């Protein structure tokens, strides 16, 4: 399990309970004990960083491993500027440069900046990091509902503290960001798929049949992009060409049999220093809804022996059950692959970060299957 509440340290202050966006923390009315309902937990880490008694243990991105990472990364990147980004809206490096005006920086991207505790900020400053930039999601874009406002308040309080310590005003720069759909209306054929599939009503189709997007409602799941038959849509930061290039690059550095994983960034939280075996590489997506059948096929064409899709279970999906649609698409593609003789090369699994060992297990099983297929092929 990814999160644990240590009763012996808990002071029963209930701060965690009041902050949890998913009502996964309860107070027992009789005993007064604070209890965690792990089934509801999405491992955003907001409770972890807010607990004054440090009674909560978390597997991913706990303060110690973040601080270790910073020490390592400071050497590696040779910079004294730190950019902490929320995965949900983290842009590529050039965009970070444009947003904050820094060209050399230590990147740190985590699922929700709301999980970064004061301790990490303080240690970073003590380490000699001079500039800290925080990129949180726009408030209506936050995948953990409260993560972005929590970050805002924390940075505000921290800046006041740093000012008193003589670090100047607004020592930490906070900006908000989100990644949304981009439509090329010249390519639109007016089929209405985007309008039908968008879970947020952000797409509309007016006569004479061209899609219109209300970008304020777009939450960047990418489902419309995957469903557009005319390839008229792109998702910022996950453009088709960008993913294609990534597929080529990763496959070229892998060893056979090659397994490419497309994973929803909310379904699997990779460790900061995570390394796969040389047979496996992963591409993180904003939601499994952005998994494109074209990319799965492209991976197989370019030499992948197996493709694994890791999605959130439908009830955990941060995007209005978009993962269910993705599952449907993948199933249809599997059927087609069976028809041409590529059986068992594509696997869809639902995993949640709260059970950290489940993804590893799925990957291990799938790797075994692909190894078997591969060695059979070699023998022929």
């Amino acid at each position, binding site marked *: 399990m990814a999160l644990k509440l240590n009763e012996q340290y808990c002071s029963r202050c209930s701060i965690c309970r009041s902050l949890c966006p998913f009502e996964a923390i309860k107070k027992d009315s009789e005993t007064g004990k604070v209890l965690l309902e792990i089934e509801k937990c999405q491992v955003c880490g907001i409770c972890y960083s807010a607990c004054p008694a440090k009674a909560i243990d978390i597997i991913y991105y706990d303060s110690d491993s973040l601080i270790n990472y910073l020490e390592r990364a400071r050497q590696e990147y040779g910079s004294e500027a730190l950019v902490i980004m929320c995965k949900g809206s983290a842009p590529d490096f050039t965009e970070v440069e444009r947003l904050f005006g820094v060209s050399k920086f230590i990147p740190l991207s985590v699922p929700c900046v709301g999980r970064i505790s004061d301790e990490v900020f303080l240690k970073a400053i003590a380490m000699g990091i001079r500039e800290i930039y925080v990129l949180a999601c726009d408030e209506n874009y936050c995948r953990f509902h409260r993560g972005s406002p929590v970050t805002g308040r924390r940075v505000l309080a921290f800046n006041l503290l740093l000012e008193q310590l003589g670090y100047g005003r607004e020592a930490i720069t906070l900006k908000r960001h989100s990644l949304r759909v981009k439509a090329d209306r010249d390519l639109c*054929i007016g*089929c209405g*798929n985007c309008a*039908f599939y968008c879970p947020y009503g952000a797409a509309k189709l007016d006569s004479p049949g061209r899609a219109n997007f209300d970008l304020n409602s777009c939450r960047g799941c990418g489902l419309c992009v995957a469903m*557009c*038959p*005319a*390839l008229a849509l792109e998702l910022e930061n996950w453009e088709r060409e960008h993913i294609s290039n990534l597929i080529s690059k990763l496959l070229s550095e892998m060893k056979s049999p090659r397994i490419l994983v497309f994973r929803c960034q909310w379904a699997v939280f990779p460790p900061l220093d995570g390394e796969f075996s040389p047979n496996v590489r992963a591409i993180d997506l904003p939601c499994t809804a952005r998994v494109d*059948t*074209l990319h799965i*096929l*492209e991976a*197989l*064409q370019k030499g992948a022996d197996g493709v694994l899709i890791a999605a959130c279970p439908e009830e955990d999906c941060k995007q209005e059950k978009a993962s269910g649609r993705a599952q*449907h698409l993948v199933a249809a593609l599997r059927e*087609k*692959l069976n*028809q*041409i*003789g*590529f059986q068992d090369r594509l696997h869809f699994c639902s995993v949640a970060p709260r059970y950290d060992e489940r993804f590893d297990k799925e990957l291990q099983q799938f790797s075994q299957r692909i190894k078997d297929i591969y060695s059979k092929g070699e023998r022929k």
Partner: protein
Amino acid sequence: MIVTAQKPLDEILDSISPYSNILIAGCDGCTQPPRGLREAKTLSQLLELGGRLRGKNFLFKATTVVKQCDSFLAASALKPQVDGAAAVLSLACGAGVQTVAELFPGLSVLPAQNTHFIGVEDREGGILEERCTACGDCILARMGGICPVTRCAKGLLNGACGGARNGKCEMDPAKDCAWELIFLRLEKQGNLDRLKEFRPARNYQLRAWRLTP
């Protein structure tokens, strides 16, 4: 919309096997589900992978046409693209395939789709159903907007036949009895007396094969 379904990939692979250079042409027109550029590309990738296992190296080019059944639009979209291709694999309905075949009589034009009917899509359920037979003599005004020619298994104009069970057709228990639907709709509208009118047998001469617009 014209409802089509993709042929089994085996059959498509067989049909393209004599050729190496193949142009895959999608259709953005009324064919449903949409068979545009995405489908053309997906199909080219699948056939390329399938070809590899069969020891064939196909060379595909994927493109799309606004409306393949319009010879003017099909010609302007495809003429610049067919150079070097020995065959065109069309994702359009039968009308589109024939238009392209007529445009390029020297090329083999092959269908990737089976064309089924004029129908509607229930997107939520992912089901496509027939709604119109193109009989040339529309009686929907008197039928509460439900076509018995298409939806009654017997095509009765004076129904119901009496064979329905629990609202389902005796020919196919998965299918609603069209006449029961018509009865319920007219009842809701307070127009049940329309059912008392006798409707003469369908005039098959009205089913045109050529018209002047």
